[in-house]
C-alpha cells in the first residue's frame, strides 16, 4: 500500500517539479550559451541579466516549493476535503505519513541534484572537477587532514547524517504541527501555526540546555578554538562527537513528531 500511496503522491507533485526542473536546466543552458557567444557585446547584457534573475528565482523555487508542497499536500490531502477519500482507504495512518515524507525527501534530493547540475552547466570548463578536488585536498592538507584518516571519513559521515536528519526533522515538525492544529476546529491554520511555534520553542529550549551541558565540557573549548586539525586525532574527536550528538537529538525529535502525528491521525482525526 505504501508503494501505491507514494506513486500517487509523486504523480501529483511531479506535475509541478518535473516542469520546474526542466525550466531550470533549460535556463542554465541558454544562459551558458549567452556566456559562450559573446562576452562583450552590450546587446546581450539585458537578456543575460534577466536570465540570471530567472535562474536565481528558479533555484530558490525548486527548494522552497518542496516545503510549500509538503505542507499543502499534507493539509489538503489528509486534513482537507481530500482527506474524506484518503482516510477511508484501507490504509494505516502511518503509511500516509511515510508516503508524504518520502515524496518530500525525494523531491528535496532531486532539487539538490538539479541545482548542482545547473551550476555545473554554467561553470563547466575543461578540468573543472580536477580543480575542485585539488582545491578540497589542498584545504584539507593545510590543516593537516587527509582522506586516509578514518576520523576524517567518520566526521564527514556525521555531517551528512546531521543534514539528512535535520531535513527529515523539518518535514516531520511541519506534519506534527498540522496534525495537532486540526484539533482547533474552525481555526485549523492558526492552530497549526501555534503548534509549530510550540514545537519550535520546545525544541530550541531542549537544544539550548544540551548546548549548555556541552559548553561545560572540554569538548566545547576545542570547538571554539576552531582548530580543524583536531579532527585527525581520532574517530571520536570533538567535531564528530558534536555532529553525532546533534544528529541523535534531531532523530529523537523526529521520532517524537512522528509519534504525535501518527497518534493524531489515528486517534484524534477530526475532519471538518
Amino acid at each position, binding site marked *: 500500500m505504501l508503494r501505491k500511496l507514494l506513486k500517487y503522491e509523486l504523480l501529483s507533485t511531479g506535475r509541478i517539479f518535473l516542469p520546474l526542473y526542466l525550466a531550470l536546466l533549460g535556463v542554465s543552458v541558454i544562459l551558458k550559451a549567452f556566456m559562450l557567444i559573446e562576452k562583450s557585446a552590450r546587446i546581450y547584457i539585458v537578456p543575460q541579466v534577466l536570465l540570471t534573475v530567472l535562474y536565481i528565482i528558479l533555484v530558490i523555487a525548486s527548494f522552497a516549493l518542496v516545503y510549500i508542497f509538503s505542507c499543502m499536500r499534507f493539509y489538503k490531502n489528509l486534513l482537507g476535503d481530500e482527506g474524506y477519500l484518503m482516510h477511508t482507504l*484501507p490504509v494505516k495512518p502511518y503509511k500516509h505519513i511515510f508516503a508524504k515524507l518520502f515524496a518530500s525527501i525525494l523531491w528535496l534530493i532531486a532539487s539538490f541534484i538539479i541545482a548542482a547540475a545547473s551550476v555545473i552547466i554554467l561553470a563547466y570548463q575543461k578540468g573543472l572537477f580536477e580543480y575542485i578536488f585539488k582545491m578540497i585536498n589542498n584545504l584539507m592538507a593545510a590543516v593537516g587532514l587527509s582522506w586516509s584518516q578514518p576520523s576524517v571519513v567518520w566526521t564527514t559521515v556525521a555531517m551528512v547524517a546531521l543534514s539528512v536528519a535535520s531535513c527529515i526533522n523539518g518535514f516531520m515538525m511541519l506534519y506534527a504541527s498540522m496534525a495537532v492544529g486540526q484539533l482547533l476546529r474552525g481555526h485549523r491554520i492558526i492552530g497549526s501555526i501555534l503548534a509549530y511555534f510550540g514545537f519550535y520553542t520546545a525544541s530550541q529550549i531542549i537544544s539550548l540546555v544540551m548546548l549548555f551541558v556541552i559548553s561545560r565540557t572540554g569538548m566545547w573549548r576545542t570547538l571554539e578554538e576552531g582548530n580543524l586539525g583536531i579532527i585527525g586525532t581520532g574517530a571520536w574527536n570533538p567535531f564528530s562527537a558534536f555532529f553525532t550528538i546533534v544528529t541523535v537529538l534531531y532523530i529523537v525529535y523526529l521520532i517524537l513528531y512522528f509519534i504525535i502525528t501518527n497518534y493524531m491521525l489515528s486517534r484524534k482525526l*477530526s475532519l471538518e
Partner: protein
Amino acid sequence: MSQNGNYDAHEIKADELLPVAQQESQGDDGNAAAAAAVPLLECRRLTKRYTGGRDALSDINLKIYGNRIIGLLGPNGSGKTTFIKLICGLLMPTSGEVLVCGMRPGVESKHLVSYLPDRIYLNEWMRVHRLISFFEDFYDNFAPDKAYSMLERLGIDPDAKLKNLSKGTKEKVQLILTMSRRASLYLLDEPIGGVDPASRDFILGTILSNYNPGATVIISTHIISDVERILDDVIFLSNGKIMLAGAADEIREKNGKSIDELFREVFKC
C-alpha cells in the same frame, strides 16, 4: 426480505409521541438467529461533542444487520453527517463506540464500508480513468468494468479532467465509484441533495441496481418523498438523538401516514 430480525433498535429512549419500534420483542426464529450474529453496524452509547458546543450525537444505541435499505432522516444539523463520519473513522467519538462487524473503524472495517461523503473529495488534477485505477489500486472489492459501464451510460468521458467537470458531474462520478465497490455497508450522505429532481430517480436507480446483494445501504437525506419508496427501515434523528427507528411499513401503518408526511409533522418549524 424479512421484515423482522434484521433491525434492532433497543435501548433507544422512546419519544412519547412516537414510540420506537421494538422489533426484538416480536422475535421469531429468524430474529433469534440474527440477534446471535455480529451486527453489521453497532453503536453503543455513541456520543460526539464538538469542542465548546452541544452534543452533535448523544447516547446512540443501535444495531443494524445486513440486507436492508435504511433512511437516515433528519433536518439539517440533526447529526446525520456526524453519525456517518464516526462510522468511517473521520471523527472520533467523545464517548461510547461504533463497531462495524464487531470492529472499531480501522483498516479492516474500511474494506467493508463504501462511503459517499456530502462533499467533493476528488483530486482536481486527476482524470476520471486515473481515479478509477486509484480505486482499483486500493480496494480489492472495486469493479472497474462496472464503473466504466456506468460512466458510459451517463455519458461521462473517462479521459475528462476532474477540474473541468461540473459539480453535478463530479457528484455522479463519486456515486459511481462508491457503488462500484462490492461492499457490505454503503453509507451515502445526501446522495440526492444537490441534484435536480429528474436526476434523483436516476441516482436512486443506480444505487438500487448496483449495490452488493446482501449488503445494507444507509442513505442520509432530508428529501424524503423521493427516497421513501425504496426504504426498508427509517431512523429519525433529531438534535443528535434517535427519535424514531423501525421498519418503514410498520411506521406508516401505525401512524396512518407516509414517512414524508410524518417527517414534515415531526420537524415542523
